[in-house]
């Protein structure tokens, strides 16, 4: 959001025009073009059909489930991802490199494999599931576990570099001024981390919203209970109802965009606050 300047100032680094043009073209072809197809496909239905499709009972139930579980998974990832990043940066222990490498695995694993593995663990007779007297797989809880798993690397990888570059002197200063560890963490370290944590959260959240492969195995796909929105989109496609499928996708896109936009706004605000204080 640059304020409009009356006099054009020459930029010191040349090549702005060319690089901006290239960026716009690249983003357009890679991102905007496929997204616009979603909207174009949706326009084959009229307004009342569109509203009817996106407000169907099962569809609405699936929004609640998808957004709710993605939010829960995002929050879990923020808490534990930050802790993992902290441990990896601040402490030395044998096998640290291995743990560091393990964090990225959920990205590399095909989602279907993740889904099947998690379901095997958490099914009522599964290795882990058998120790609980309530169901984990085939409930929203199972979905949250799957989404947390696939989103784990985001927060860790965004917070890690910030922690690595964190200036230890500030901590020492706060300690010498009589703050205890907790106060130091909350008042000194956390504000620095918040932008990175927000970025990690929004990535993990967005990723979880669109996740299909791993969730269909652990969800159980019961109508009105554990049907995620991407599954509803698949059911529309099975009926060769492209317009209906893209209509629901449009809703997801718009809501996700708004949420990510709000998160970005929060980031700008916090950034300014901390950088100018």
């Amino acid at each position, binding site marked *: 959001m640059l304020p409009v300047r009356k006099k054009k100032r020459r930029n010191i680094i040349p090549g702005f025009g060319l690089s901006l043009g290239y960026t716009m073209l690249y983003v357009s072809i890679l991102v905007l073009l496929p997204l616009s197809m979603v909207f174009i496909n949706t326009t084959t239905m009229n307004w009342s059909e569109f509203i009817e499709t996106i407000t*169907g009972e099962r569809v609405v139930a699936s929004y609640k489930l998808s957004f709710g579980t993605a939010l829960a998974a995002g929050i879990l990832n923020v808490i534990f991802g930050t802790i993992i990043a902290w441990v990896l940066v601040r402490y030395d222990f044998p096998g640290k490199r291995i743990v560091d490498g393990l964090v990225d695995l959920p990205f590399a694993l095909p989602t279907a494999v993740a889904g099947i593995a998690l379901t095997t663990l958490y099914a009522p*007779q599964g290795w882990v599931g058998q120790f609980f007297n309530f169901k984990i797989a085939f409930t929203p809880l199972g979905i949250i576990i799957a989404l947390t798993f696939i989103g784990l690397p985001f927060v860790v990888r965004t917070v890690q570099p910030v922690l690595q570059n964190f200036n230890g002197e500030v901590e020492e200063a706060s300690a010498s001024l009589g703050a205890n560890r907790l106060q130091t963490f909350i008042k000194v370290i956390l504000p620095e981390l918040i932008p990175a944590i927000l970025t990690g959260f929004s990535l993990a959240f967005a990723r979880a919203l669109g996740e299909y492969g791993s969730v269909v195995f652990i969800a159980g796909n019961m109508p009105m209970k554990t049907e995620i929105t991407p*599954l509803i989109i698949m059911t*529309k496609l099975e009926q060769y109802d492209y317009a209906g499928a893209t209509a629901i996708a449009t809703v997801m896109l718009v809501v996700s965009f708004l949420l990510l936009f709000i998160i970005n706004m929060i980031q700008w605000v916090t950034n300014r606050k901390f950088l100018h204080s």
Partner: protein
Amino acid sequence: MMILAGCSNSQSSSNEEKDGSSDSKKPVELLNVSYDPTRELYQEFNEDFIAYWKEETGQDVTIQQSHGGSGKQGRAVIDGLEADVVTLALAYDIDEIAQARQLLNEDWETEFEDNSTPYTSTIVFLVRKGNPKGIKDWNDLTKKGVSVITPNPKTSGGARWNYLAAWAYAKQQYNGDEAKIKAFMKDLYGNVEVLDSGARGSTTTFVERGIGDVLIAWENEAYLSLNELGKDEFEIVTPSLSILAEPPVAVVDKIVDKKGTREVAEAYLKHLYTEKGQEIAAKNYYRPRSEAVLEKYKNQFPSLDLVTVKDFGGWKKAQETHFNDGGTFDEIYQPK
């Protein structure tokens, strides 16, 4: 029971040049777009056909296989996957290909014998060894305390057969009383713990994870589970009445004409109807159309009352009535 459709191959290929076999000695490639459970069947069948074709014409043919959920495969062909032949789970999927892009004639079902379905299957139950819940027929699946595993008819072609088979049983029990049939279906689906998105997923849930007392499955899938995962763990229960599942095959006219592969594509599908092709189908647990081969394998395929999808007014109507949004399947899950 079955009305044999006459084999009328003439109308589409009469204007073709008939000298194809003499000068087309250079290798040819076929793409067969199929659905999930036929993987093993076509592996074996392709080998046989390649040898047969080499002997007949001297031409080398390679066959590419593509497998996936039937609806997904149908959409891939509509979106431009250049299949010479499609061998899918439902006539409905091929109908959509015919309508959406006019890639083949709308009367494609009359191309080959038996509605262009060279092999059939039916819907049976897989239960745990010893059948602890004493499951014999569809009504046992509605009892309290019986846990049923079947995929979601909204996403799985196989699950739609399961649903229609159960519906046909209820229809016979209650003399077509719609309210009672729906109540029956509601009880049955009330016992379903997990609705996997595909047939293989359901098999995994039942077999690997040990969830559920009974799996409603294709007969061929049930046999595969039995033979691959342990005869000492499961049993197949054949209900009193079920549905004749007819997975159809078709030559994709526009594409074979474009590629010049019509002759070999037609021979490929015709080969499914030969004694050898029928034998391979039976070996892979699909019910053969040939009486002679069926007789040979009669221990594997117990006879039972079979309705067909025609009793539901064809796939198009069945899809609209039962599985599209607002159909009977959605109704069952309406929260009261």
